[in-house]
């Protein structure tokens, strides 16, 4: 069974764009509008963690930002799932924060669909 990808971003248009790009390549995408919702979606997969292949998370989000979200995920049984940050932030200090929180990669928007697909394939291997 193909693994699911969780996209956590407050922009519904960005989520739609990512879902379209990835579903065209056969991936099943789950959506969450912020970090709190993202953790809730993950909770629904407790005991079947392996069904989630990777997480894509934005940084600037209401309720719970991306860095906090990553730190929270790392405290759960989902801690081994790779997290790709997809953000408009390109500052080195922010990237370091992401790395220290436990992210596996950092892609700066606006992204090219083919690049996202390539990173996802790499992470799901």
């Amino acid at each position: 069974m193909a693994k699911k990808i969780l996209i956590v971003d407050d922009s519904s248009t960005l989520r739609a764009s990512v879902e379209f790009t990835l579903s065209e390549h056969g991936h099943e995408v789950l959506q969450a509008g912020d970090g709190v919702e993202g953790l809730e979606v993950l909770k629904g997969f407790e005991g079947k963690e392996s069904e989630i292949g990777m997480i894509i998370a934005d940084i600037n989000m209401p309720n719970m930002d991306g860095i906090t979200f990553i730190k929270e995920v790392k405290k759960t049984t989902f801690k081994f799932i790779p997290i790709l940050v997809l953000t408009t932030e390109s500052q080195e200090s922010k990237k370091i924060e992401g790395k220290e929180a436990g992210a596996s990669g950092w892609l700066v928007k606006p992204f090219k669909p083919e690049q996202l697909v390539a990173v996802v394939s790499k992470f799901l291997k």
Partner: protein
Amino acid sequence: MNISYNIKFQLELVTIYPGEFHATSQERIIYTLLGSCIAVVLYDPVKKIGGMNHFMLPDTINKERFYLSKSGKYGMYAMELLINELIKMGGVKKNFQAKVFGGGSVLGSVGGHVSKVPENNIKFALAFLEEEKIPIIASNVGGSEARKVYFFTKESRILLKKISKSQSAPIASDESAYFNKIRTEKAIRKEQLTLF
């Protein structure tokens, strides 16, 4: 971007140019001069912070699925920069109110591309805000005139001045240069991937 002092209103005046944005929690005037471009003003009435951007789409979009095209993605990027800045300043997205200006037909036709620019810009701004559920509480778009937009950030008041087509030539020339830049993706920062 350029910051000056406006004697008449006794306030700092921040001028933004095509491709730029500014957000603030201070009492200021954010000003821009629009031809075919669009400026979206976002304001959080609870936190009393606001900002404005000024952008143009490089190509046509499909209204229903604008987020799939390169052009739509460029517009989303312009909007996200402003939204993120407001969120970073403590803004709450569900409180945001939008005002939309511009999209005047002041550009001539260049290779058949430019003529649809104003229409596309308007279409994108309205579709994006609807999709992101940000209510539009005021707008002044379309027509054939250029616009000067002054956004008074404290009370979210707009002062709008229209400029006749005959006086719009310098704006059209600036916008054509910006248009050509984004058409060739020069305005878009190169994508960056870092693997940790």
